[in-house]
C-alpha cells in the first residue's frame, strides 16, 4: 500500500504541476482583473519551478550540502548521495526572475489604475475604444 | 584613352550622368534657370556620350563594363551592343528636345513642383538608359523598377484625385508586372544559372531538364512583366497615364517607358529565348496573336476617342503591338523593322504628342472636336502634326514607311500572310482615326466669338476671319514650337537617310548577330 501510494504521489507531482500550470494559464487568459492575471502568471512560473525541482529529486539522496564539508578531502563524495543541485540553482534564478517580473507587473498595474481608474480589463477596453 | 571618358567607362558615365543631373536639379531647387540649364546640359552630354559609343560598337563590337558582383554569376554590368544603342540613342536624343519643350510647357502653364518634375524626369532617363545598356536581366530589372517608380510622381503630377488614382493604376500595373518579371528572372536563373543576354538565346539548354510548358509559362511571366509594352489586356494604364503633363506623355509614354517594355520583349525573345527556341516552343505565334488582337482592338478604341491625348495613347498601343508582331514573326527583316520602328515611331509619336501639348498649352483645347480652324492659328504645329500622322500609317516620304516596309517584307519572308493582312488593316485604320483631326484642323472653321483659355494672362478673342498667329505670340512658346518642328523634320530625314545617328547600321548589326545575316 505504502509503495503504491508513494508511486502515485510521486507521479502526482507531475500531475500537480500540469494542473497548476493550466490554472495559471487559464487565469492569464480569462480573468478580467489585472491583479488576477498577475497571480495567474505567477502560478505558471511556480508550476514550472515545481517541475524543475521534481527533476532534481533523487531516491536515497539527501540535501545537496556535503556533510563534513570542512575537511572534505578525507571523505569520498558519491554523487548518488546528494540530490541533483543543478535544478535548484536554475530555480533560484527562476524565482528571482518571477519576483522581478511581479514587481514590474504590479508597477504597471498601478500606473494603469492611475490612468484608467480601474483594473478590470473590459472597462479599460471600453475606455480605449471610446477615444 | 583612360580615365572617366575611356571607352570602357562610357556606359558608366552614361548611367551616372542622369543621376548627377538629378541631384544637381534637387540642389538648385530655388533657382529655376540654373535648374533647367542642368537638365539641358545633362541631356546634351548624355546624347554625346551615347552617340560616341556607336562608332566604337560598330567597329569593335560590344563595350562591356562590369561594376560589381550582384549575385553569384550575376554582375551589375553593362554591355553596350548595337540593339541597346538604338534604344539609348533614341531616348537620349529625344531627351534634349523634350527638356527644351518642358521649359516652354511648364512655364507657360505655371505648373507647381517643377523641381520634382525635372528630378523625376532625369531619374526616368536613368532608367531608360540603364535598361538599354544593361547586360543581364537583373541589372535590367534594377533600372526597370527605377523607371517605374520615378515616373509615378510624374503621372500623378497634377495631384488631383483623378491624377493620383491614375498614378495608382500605373503603379499597380507596372509593379505588378515587375513581380512577374522577377519570377521570370528567378526561373531563368534557376534553369540555366545565368541571366546574361546572348544573341543566340541562353535558355535553349534548359529545354531538356525543364518541360516545354515550363518555358512557355516563364515566357508569359516575362510578357506580363513587360506590361510597359501595353499589350492588351494589360494596356489600360497607358490611357489613364495621359493625365500627366504632356512632355511626360511625350517622352515617357511614347518613348522611354513603353519602348522599354517593347525593348524588353525583344531582349527576351531574341536574347534570352533565341529565335530557334521561340520557334520550337511555338511562342512566336502566341505573341503574334496577342499583338494582332491588340492592334485591331486598339485601333477601334482610337477611332472613338475625342480627347487627343487619349487617342494618341491608343495609337501608341497599336504601334507597340505592331513592333511586337514584327518581332513575333521571327524573320530577320521583320526584326530589323521592329528595331527600326522603336526609333522611328519614337520620333513620329513624340511629334504628335508635342503638338498635342502645344495645342493644349497655347490654345487650351483638349478635345478633337474643338480643333476647328486651328490649322490656321498654329500652322507650324499642325503641319508637324500632319507629318506625324502620316508617318503613323507609313506614307512614303516619312520614317514610318521604312520600318513598315521592312516588317511587311519580313512577314512575306516568314510566310505569315494572316499577320501581314492584319498589319495592313492596322495601317488603314490608322488613317481612319487620324482623319477627323486633320479634317477638323485644316478644313473646319473656328466658331466665332470663342475664347481661347490657354493664355492665363490675357484672353484672346479669335475669329474665323482674322486668325491670330497664336504660336508665336509669346517668346516662351518658341520653346515648344522648335522641338516639335525638329522632330517633324527628323521624321522626314529618317526616311531619306535611315542611317542618321547610325541607326540603320546598328540595327543591321544587331540582326546579323541574332540571325547571322539579313
Amino acid at each position, binding site marked *: 500500500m505504502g509503495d503504491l501510494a508513494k508511486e502515485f*504521489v510521486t507521479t502526482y507531482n507531475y500531475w500537480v504541476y500540469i494542473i497548476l500550470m493550466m490554472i495559471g494559464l487559464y*487565469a492569464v487568459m480569462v480573468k478580467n*482583473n489585472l*491583479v*488576477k492575471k498577475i497571480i495567474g502568471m505567477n502560478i505558471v512560473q*511556480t508550476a514550472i519551478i515545481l517541475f524543475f525541482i521534481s527533476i*532534481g529529486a533523487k531516491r536515497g*539522496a539527501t540535501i545537496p550540502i556535503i556533510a563534513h564539508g570542512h575537511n572534505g578531502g578525507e571523505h569520498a563524495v558519491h554523487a548518488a548521495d546528494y540530490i541533483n543541485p543543478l535544478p535548484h540553482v536554475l530555480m533560484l534564478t527562476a524565482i528571482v526572475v518571477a*519576483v522581478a517580473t511581479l514587481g514590474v507587473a504590479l508597477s504597471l498595474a*498601478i500606473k494603469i489604475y492611475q490612468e484608467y481608474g480601474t483594473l478590470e480589463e473590459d472597462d479599460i477596453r471600453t475606455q480605449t475604444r471610446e477615444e | 584613352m583612360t580615365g572617366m571618358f575611356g571607352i570602357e567607362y562610357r556606359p558608366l558615365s552614361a548611367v551616372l550622368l542622369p543621376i548627377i543631373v538629378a541631384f544637381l536639379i534637387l540642389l538648385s531647387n530655388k533657382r529655376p534657370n540654373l535648374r533647367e540649364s542642368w537638365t539641358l546640359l545633362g541631356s546634351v552630354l548624355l546624347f554625346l556620350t551615347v552617340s560616341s559609343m556607336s562608332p566604337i560598337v560598330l567597329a569593335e563590337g560590344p563595350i562591356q563594363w562590369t561594376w560589381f558582383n550582384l549575385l553569384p554569376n550575376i554582375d551589375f554590368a553593362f554591355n553596350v551592343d548595337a540593339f541597346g544603342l538604338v534604344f539609348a540613342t533614341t531616348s537620349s536624343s529625344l531627351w534634349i528636345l523634350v527638356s527644351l519643350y518642358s521649359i516652354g510647357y511648364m512655364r507657360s502653364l505655371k505648373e507647381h513642383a517643377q523641381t520634382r518634375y525635372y528630378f523625376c524626369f532625369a531619374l526616368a532617363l536613368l532608367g531608360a538608359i540603364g535598361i538599354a545598356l544593361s547586360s543581364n536581366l537583373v541589372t535590367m530589372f534594377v533600372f526597370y523598377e527605377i523607371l517605374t517608380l520615378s515616373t509615378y510622381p510624374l503621372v500623378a503630377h497634377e495631384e488631383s484625385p483623378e491624377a493620383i488614382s491614375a498614378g495608382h493604376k500605373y503603379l499597380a500595373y507596372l509593379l505588378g508586372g515587375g513581380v512577374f518579371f522577377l519570377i521570370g528572372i528567378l526561373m531563368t536563373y534557376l534553369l540555366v544559372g545565368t541571366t546574361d543576354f546572348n544573341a543566340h538565346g541562353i535558355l535553349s539548354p534548359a529545354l531538356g531538364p525543364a518541360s516545354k510548358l515550363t518555358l512557355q509559362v516563364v515566357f508569359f511571366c516575362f510578357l506580363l512583366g513587360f506590361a510597359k509594352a501595353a499589350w492588351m489586356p494589360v494596356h489600360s494604364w497607358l490611357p489613364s497615364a495621359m493625365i500627366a503633363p504632356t512632355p511626360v506623355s511625350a517622352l515617357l509614354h511614347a518613348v522611354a517607358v513603353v519602348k522599354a517594355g517593347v525593348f524588353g520583349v525583344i531582349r527576351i525573345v531574341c536574347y534570352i529565348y533565341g529565335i530557334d527556341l521561340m520557334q520550337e516552343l511555338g511562342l512566336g505565334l502566341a505573341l503574334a496573336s496577342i499583338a494582332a488582337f491588340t492592334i485591331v482592338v486598339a485601333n477601334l478604341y482610337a477611332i472613338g476617342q475625342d480627347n487627343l491625348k487619349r487617342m494618341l495613347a491608343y495609337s501608341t498601343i497599336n504601334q507597340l503591338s505592331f513592333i511586337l508582331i514584327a518581332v513575333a514573326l521571327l524573320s530577320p527583316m521583320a526584326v530589323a523593322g521592329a528595331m527600326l520602328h522603336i526609333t522611328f515611331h519614337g520620333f513620329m509619336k513624340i511629334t504628335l504628342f508635342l503638338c498635342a501639348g502645344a495645342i493644349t498649352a497655347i490654345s487650351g483645347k483638349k478635345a478633337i472636336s474643338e480643333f476647328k480652324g486651328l490649322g490656321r492659328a498654329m500652322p507650324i504645329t499642325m503641319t508637324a502634326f500632319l507629318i506625324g500622322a502620316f508617318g503613323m500609317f507609313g506614307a512614303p516620304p516619312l520614317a514610318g514607311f521604312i520600318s513598315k516596309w521592312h516588317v511587311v517584307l519580313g512577314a512575306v519572308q516568314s510566310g505569315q500572310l494572316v499577320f501581314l493582312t492584319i498589319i495592313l488593316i492596322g495601317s488603314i485604320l490608322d488613317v481612319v482615326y487620324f482623319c477627323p483631326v486633320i479634317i477638323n484642323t485644316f478644313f473646319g472653321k473656328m466658331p466665332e466669338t470663342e475664347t481661347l483659355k490657354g493664355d492665363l494672362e490675357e484672353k484672346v478673342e479669335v475669329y474665323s476671319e482674322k486668325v491670330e498667329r497664336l504660336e508665336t505670340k509669346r517668346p516662351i512658346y518658341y520653346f515648344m514650337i522648335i522641338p516639335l518642328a525638329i522632330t517633324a523634320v527628323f521624321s522626314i530625314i529618317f526616311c531619306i537617310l535611315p542611317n542618321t545617328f547610325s541607326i540603320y547600321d546598328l540595327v543591321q548589326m544587331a540582326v546579323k548577330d541574332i540571325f547571322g545575316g539579313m
Partner: protein
Amino acid sequence: MNWQIEFIILTMVIILGIGAITVKDLLGAGILFGAYSFMMCLLWAIMGAVDVAFTEASVGAGVSTVFFISAVFRTTRGTKD
C-alpha cells in the same frame, strides 16, 4: 509518513491556487497567493531543495505578498471576478 504530508501539501497547493484566482477580494487573493507560495516552499523543503525553499519562503511568501498588498492598497480591492 512522508508521502501523506506531501500528498496533502500538493492538494493544498492546488486548492490555494484555485482560491487565489477565484476569490472576489484582491487583498484576499494576495494573501492566498502568499499561502500558496508558502505551501510550495514546504513542498520543496520536503523534496530536499532547501535553498530553493528558503528563497521561496523569503521571496515568494514574504516579499511578493507585501508587493501584492501594496499594489492592492494603491489601486482597488474589489473586483468583478
